[in-house]
């Protein structure tokens, strides 16, 4: 299996072998990393394993360019979090950060070299109007003005229509839960908020909080495996791998508690996929006992074989060198699956009909 994996995955799994790569290998490695949005991550990963200095000089130079970009993103993220915190200060809510913003604020391993453009926060559903109003008073505006898109987000989704700051052009997604209201699984947002941990360390933006480790891992897996687009799937899988490795080694009882917490939130199937493909593609050290405990959450064998075929294609970098027979078909089938998971069939049919024939062309909501 290992020898068949794309070069980028082999180097992420075993960075100590990077120094022996040929110039042509480095060329390919950097192109795969750039395609997967993992250039700065690769820079950091090689540095952390003490092999960056032995990299081909031209490759090291190019990786350093990406590291500059990542430093800028981190700085902008801290700044943006502070400004969001100021805007929401009067509401008496913790600023509960999700995904990239949380990793950056807490200094968690996936943050190293991670590039992202928007901040995600989680607030109680009944405070959405106040949060939205406070953000608008501080310069954020809604982006989806079409009536249908408004209804799509407000009635069916797990977040407000994305908002953008008029001056800085930065985006914020305000979530009240982590899956669409119309999805079959209903994670318990109250449990997520109750278990959240305030950030206290030096340098953490004031008043911020992040999900508890188990919930953060569940959200990472759900975000990836409930979605329908995987062109940056490897980046998200890398996030999950880093979180699992980090918390698995540091949080007492993490591996034992994961299956039960997944079922509590009805996210066990997504977590099963998360553990399976993170271990398969990135070599995550998941304890056998945890795998055994999650085994009942696997799909039936025939479906699992199909999923293996789809995910082991779609989660590779979408660089031409990693695309093979069936890659495009896998993307398409997973796209259909993502929509299928998002809402019940009849509503999905109506939604797709509306998007295809009734939404004005080139409107912002065309991608929703």
């Amino acid at each position, binding site marked *: 299996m290992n020898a068949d994996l794309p070069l980028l995955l082999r180097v992420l799994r075993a960075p100590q072998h990077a120094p022996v790569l*040929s*110039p*042509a290998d*480095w*060329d390919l490695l950097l*192109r795969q990393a*750039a*395609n997967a949005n993992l250039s700065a991550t690769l820079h950091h990963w090689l540095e952390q394993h003490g092999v960056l200095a032995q990299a*081909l000089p*031209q*490759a090291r*130079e*190019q990786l*350093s*360019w990406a590291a*500059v*970009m990542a*430093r*800028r993103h981190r*700085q902008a993220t801290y700044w943006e979090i502070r400004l969001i915190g100021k805007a929401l200060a009067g509401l008496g809510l913790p600023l509960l950060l999700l995904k990239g913003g949380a990793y950056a604020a807490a200094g968690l391993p996936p943050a190293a070299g991670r590039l992202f453009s928007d901040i995600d926060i989680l607030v109680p559903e009944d405070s959405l109007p106040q949060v939205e109003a406070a953000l608008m008073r501080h310069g954020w505006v809604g982006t989806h003005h079409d009536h249908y898109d408004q209804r799509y987000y407000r009635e069916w989704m797990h977040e407000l229509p994305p908002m953008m700051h008029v001056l800085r052009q930065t985006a914020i997604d305000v979530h009240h839960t982590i899956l669409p209201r119309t999805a079959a699984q209903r994670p318990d947002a109250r449990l997520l908020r109750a278990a959240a941990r305030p950030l206290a360390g030096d340098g953490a933006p004031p008043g911020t909080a992040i999900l508890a480790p188990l919930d953060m891992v569940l959200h990472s897996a759900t975000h990836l495996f409930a979605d329908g687009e995987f062109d940056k799937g490897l980046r998200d899988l890398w996030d999950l791998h880093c979180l699992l490795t980090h918390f698995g080694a540091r949080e007492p009882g993490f591996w034992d508690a994961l299956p039960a917490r997944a079922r509590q939130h009805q996210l066990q199937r997504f977590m099963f996929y998360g553990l399976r493909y993170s271990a398969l593609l990135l070599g995550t050290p998941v304890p056998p006992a945890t795998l055994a405990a999650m085994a009942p959450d696997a799909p039936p064998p025939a479906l699992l074989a199909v999923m293996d075929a789809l995910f082991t294609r779609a989660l590779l970098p979408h*660089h*031409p060198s990693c695309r093979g027979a069936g890659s495009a078909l896998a993307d398409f089938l997973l796209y259909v699956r993502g929509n299928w998971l998002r809402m019940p069939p009849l509503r999905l049919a109506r939604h797709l009909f509306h998007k295809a024939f009734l939404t004005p062309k080139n409107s912002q909501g065309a991608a929703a």
Partner: protein
Amino acid sequence: MLTVASLAPAALRARLAGDGLRLRTGRFSVRLQADMPSVAAGIGQLYADYPLLQDSDFADFHLHLKRPRSARRWLRPQVRLHCDGYEMFQPMPLQHAFPMFEWGLNWCVSSRAHRYLIVHAAVLERQGRAVILPAPPGSGKSTLTAALCGKGGWRLLSDELTLLELDTGLLVPNPRPISLKNASIDIIRAYVPAAVLSTPVHDTTKGTVAHMRAPGAAVARTADCARPAWIVFPHYSAGAATTLEPLARAATFMELAGNSFNYSVLGAAGFDALGRLIEQAAGFRFRYSALDEALDTFARLDER
């Protein structure tokens, strides 16, 4: 060291149409795939002196000019530029393929090479001291640059992208063809008779464009960095008298920052680099209409 000139025209075309031509410009290596005769002609004419790399060598940028296989290729054929799968520009008419490569390569450098503060400016050197010419399009920057390196004894470091190395504060050469537009093309043909110009391409977003080959001496000295001495903001104005007026440091700083591609990406490092730059180099506003007088003014920059 092998150069692109070592390839016979047929071999050059074959490489471009096949796995790609790999060459070095300054500190960057480029792999270009393109099956258009106009691109092979442009490369053969303007890049003959550049180091040729092997297929097994590392390339910083992978550019591929492709003809889309759509129905309109029979009527109005187009060309698309892919940077390893990513398209940074809208498709252009097929005859714009060579300028599209030039613009694409500039885009690659300016959007990625963040070990340099990158300013939209020409840069030239004489006797170890460099002059930076930042200017918006239409100010006559490229015409002046072509005259300075074609006739004024200045060495071309770049016509388009000034690369200020953050670690050293030195200007790094990246000599590439000079992009001449509209009336400048005939002006330079007349003013620098020895200049080698590519076939003009009409009706681009910048009007008619022709590229002038970078002088061989400039291409040969890409390892020699230069220390910044002057920052001159040129402005061509028909019939204007030649004037060179000092510009306050703060204004020089702000104008340079405004012309930089990655000042905000670099954050504090960019601020520090610009600060060191304006401590070493004096700023001027330069108005001109006659190239002879302009060259004379630049020859006496030492006195300023």
